[in-house]
């Protein structure tokens, strides 16, 4: 594979941009997590978050959460101007502690979900979602 000087430069800049682009987890997201968990530790297992690796448009991104035995699951978009997305509270007639919805992402970022289990413990899952910019904007 051969690259011209110009290609190399463009690709190099692309790599730099990609490493910088993902938004940092905001202080607001940290606050939201702290108020949901009360600062408790979060397990890495017990909660599945499903979101596309690449979203074709940030306006409508399908996400699903599933945490058997949870009483509630909070979803956060850590790179949005306000990170809150939704909190699902499951009643006794929920067959599974799972839900799917469609969300808005302001840019490439981590989507985070936190589940509160019936025994008072917490679990956390996150997924990086790349939000692509359109071709023409037309």
């Amino acid at each position, binding site marked *: 594979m051969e690259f011209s000087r110009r290609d190399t430069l463009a690709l190099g800049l692309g790599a730099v941009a990609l490493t910088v682009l993902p938004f940092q987890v905001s202080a607001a997201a940290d606050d939201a997590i702290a108020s949901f968990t009360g600062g408790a530790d979060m397990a890495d297992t017990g909660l599945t978050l499903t979101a596309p690796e690449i979203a074709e448009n940030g306006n409508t991104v399908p996400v699903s959460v599933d945490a058997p035995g949870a009483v509630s699951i909070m979803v956060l978009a850590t790179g949005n101007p306000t990170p809150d997305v939704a909190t699902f509270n499951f009643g006794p007639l929920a067959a599974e502690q799972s*839900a799917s919805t469609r969300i*808005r992402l302001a840019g490439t970022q981590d989507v985070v979900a936190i589940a509160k289990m019936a025994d008072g413990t917490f679990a956390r899952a996150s997924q990086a979602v790349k939000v692509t910019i359109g071709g023409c904007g037309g």
Partner: protein
Amino acid sequence: MASGVKPRVKVPKTAAAGEAITIKTLISHKMESGQRKDKEGNKIPRSIINRFTVEFNGESVIDATLEPAISTNPYIQFEAIVPEAGEFKFTWYDDDGDVYDQSKKIAIG
């Protein structure tokens, strides 16, 4: 009332007693985030569905808090147990105080 709001739900007509079923819901709503500006540069005020609840014969299935990051025409899918014949009640709460609801009966069979 926000204009053009219409709730839709998809529930099977029958289920076995104790069966888990998938329910899909969608309400046509702008979900104005409060982040956008109009042509004159003024902020368009937030106007969203902020809560969605589902009950079956008076008992809770799901109660969701929704934020402006939920897409236009909010779509929510979840799983419910049907212990007996009865009625699902779906309720959406609008920022402007309006409440939209819809009911669906389900038979055991």
